[in-house]
């Protein structure tokens, strides 16, 4: 059983740079053909200051943590038993290539179902930019399968 004493645990904040090349690579990987996401001239023509961070890429930047497995390590979770249960983004403002985003993660809840066969870890992450502006909140649920 995961140790519920870690509910409320806050991880050390970290920051991640939004790199233009990474955004283009991500666009290729997800089949994005809208030039706004790969061509700076098209992005500017659409009123953006640079290449926009697409809707789900904040989750990828969250993996730029010094230890992307920090939650698994803290809770002693085997990566082979992990499934992604839910993911939500609440957006407050756009982020762009060249931004440096800060991530503050906390464990919002730990619970189980089916008599402990499935355990759930709820993570909440506040994202701010280099000006201290609130960019987004991420809400993710990781499922740990036993048996």
């Amino acid at each position: 059983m995961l140790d519920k004493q870690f509910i409320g645990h806050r991880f050390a904040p970290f920051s991640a740079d939004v790199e233009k090349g990474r955004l283009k690579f991500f666009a290729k990987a997800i089949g994005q053909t809208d030039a706004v996401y790969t061509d700076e001239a098209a992005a500017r023509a659409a009123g953006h200051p640079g290449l926009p961070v697409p809707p789900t890429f904040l989750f990828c930047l969250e993996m730029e943590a010094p230890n992307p497995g920090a939650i698994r390590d803290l809770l002693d979770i085997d990566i082979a038993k992990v499934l992604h249960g839910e993911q939500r983004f609440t957006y407050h403002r756009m982020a762009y290539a060249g931004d440096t985003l800060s991530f503050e993660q906390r464990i919002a809840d730990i619970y189980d179902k089916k008599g402990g066969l499935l355990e759930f870890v709820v993570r909440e992450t506040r994202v701010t930019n280099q000006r201290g502006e609130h960019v987004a909140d991420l809400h993710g649920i990781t499922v740990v399968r036993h048996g």
Partner: protein
Amino acid sequence: MADLQNLKVGDALPAFTTDPISRLTLALYCGASGDHNPMHVDIDFARRGGSPDVFAHGMLSMAYLGRLLTNWVDQRQIRDYGVRFTAITQVGDAITCSGTVTELFEVAGERRARLALQTVNQHGQVKLSGDAVVALA
């Protein structure tokens, strides 16, 4: 972009279907996303863990559904976007992304629409079920 002024509950977003997800798709997503979990790219690792094969990142399909949204509205209009990963997306699945308007409402003077979103594979199995809120101006 959509005609958002005359939007009605029940209206559908223009759906699309991806190419079947290949191992290359997963390798590219692994590198581009930074999600290096071997369950998605290393079949030897997957088999040692008792799985017959690697499977797709849930967040790859969430990114596909994100394309459905940004094809339809400017990304600056997206207020909230969430999904539940209800079934595993397998190698070879061709993913159809679709959405419908479920509610029109107003928050602090801003007209908004709530959308129901989903991905299904070529057999009609629902893989992701989600929702989003977008501003209509």
